[in-house]
């Protein structure tokens, strides 16, 4: 069981961040239009003093933000539409003093797969070595994954709520039309579902649709 006061991200996810004794701070540009997730990420990544996090502003093109802020690392939501722009920066723009290179750890395919599955992609800009970046990115991936799981649970909860609403509406129709009591309406739905091999919400949907088409 999780302690209620503990944050929902893994407690050790930033433990590998460069320590305070490191003189140079890793400058991270975070490009994530999901404001909630971005807020969590900033909080987690800056817990350690060695990382500085800058967020893109709404509407700002990612390539412009990279040129303006000169980060060491770009952490980006893979599905963000301007993410592809970074792949061209090295070749396309003379504004960039350093090449922008996709962060890849070929020795750790599990990490790379986890990142892709979680929907986070990262690019190395400038002179920070991949070894220095890895802890930051591991933290980001863990957060994206945790966030994704939370969202899946939320989506499931929403579906359950919608289904319950549907069953309630179907029961109301049955009570009105067939003069059923509420338990009778529910039993009728359950019997129909069992005899037709469907789920109760699916039977409820057909009842509601039949009513609407009248």
């Amino acid at each position, binding site marked *: 069981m999780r302690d209620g006061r503990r944050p929902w991200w893994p407690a050790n996810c930033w433990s590998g961040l460069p320590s305070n004794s490191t003189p140079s701070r890793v400058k991270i540009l975070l490009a994530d239009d999901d404001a909630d997730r971005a807020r969590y990420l900033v909080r987690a990544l800056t817990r350690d003093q060695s990382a500085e996090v800058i967020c893109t502003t709404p509407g700002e*093109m990612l390539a412009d933000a990279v040129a303006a802020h000169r980060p060491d690392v770009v952490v980006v939501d893979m599905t963000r539409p301007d993410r*592809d722009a970074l792949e061209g920066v090295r070749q396309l723009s003379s504004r960039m003093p350093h090449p922008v290179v996709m962060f890849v750890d070929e020795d750790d395919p599990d990490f790379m797969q986890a990142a892709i599955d979680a929907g986070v992609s990262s690019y190395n800009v400038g002179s920070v070595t991949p070894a220095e970046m890895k802890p930051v990115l591991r933290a980001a991936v863990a957060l994206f994954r945790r966030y994704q799981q939370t969202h899946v649970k939320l989506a499931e909860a929403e579906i359950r709520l919608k289904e319950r609403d549907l069953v309630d509406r179907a029961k109301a129709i049955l009570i009105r039309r067939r003069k059923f009591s509420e338990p009778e309406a529910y039993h009728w739905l359950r019997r129909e579902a069992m005899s037709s091999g469907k789920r109760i919400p699916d039977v409820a949907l057909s009842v509601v649709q039949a009513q609407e088409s009248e």
Partner: protein
Amino acid sequence: MPCSLRLGVLRLTDSAPVVLAESEGLFAAEGVEVAIQVEPSWANIADKLRWGALDAAVMPLPLALAAAAGLRGPATRLIVPMGISRGGNAVVVSSTLVTCLPEPLTPAAAPAFRAWLRDQTVPPRVAVVHLFSTHNLLLRYWLGSVGVDPDRDLEIVVIPPERVVAELTAGRIAGFCAGAPWGDVAEATGSGRILLGSSSIRPRHTEKCLALAGDWAADHPGPAAALSHALQAAQRLCDQPERSPAVAALLARRLDLPEEVTPAALPGGNGIEQIAFAAAAPLDPAEGLWFLREMRRWRWLGVDRDLEQLVADVYRSHLPLI
């Protein structure tokens, strides 16, 4: 044996063989179960193929070659068993800008075009859909042919195809080169004008190909061949002009493309050019080499690379083609 494979596409008219194969039951007829994944951008497709989140994808031929060559991160083991489409891209300029350009934009008008470009205080920003896209390479080839330096006289940026019209409408780009239906959408909404189609830059150029994740294809030779067969059958159906309205309706339903605009680039359409499907299926190594030589021309590929070998490694027509 049925096997569910994950096939990535973008919201584009030339994804038609994929959605048609699904709706006509052609995948099922070949005994292969396909889950279509609609992705937001080419980088998503390329990353997911590399890291095992997709088994196959429809992608621009030069992007498949660049990914295999290790030009966008680690070298990706990819197999290209067939082409998907020829032509269908449009070079579009914003409606406000088009009045400043000499028309028609023929080689004879090139000096005026160059002079106009160099008068601009800021180089106009033009979008392509990926660095290693057919669109970028063909646009740069065309610009070069009229004496324009794409790196000095313009600022070329990358924007995923489904976003280009919004960026043009918002005035953040001056033009774009993207696949159908986005050029026709820009014209239909009044935000842009199509200057030329990509087939006028390079006639009969290969546009999309089928790319298979190398490890997946090695482990699943049967489903890989079945996928190719089903898509070739779908290509032949997509080539029939009388089917275009139904294909457009399907693209609207499955990929949310505008049904009234999509037919322009389908066979029999009235757009600047129409996509050819079945003719693209047989692989021509010369076509892959042309794109690789263009990448070398722009110094994205070193002179030490053996381009013929690169094409031979990726093109695997040992998968039986009908």
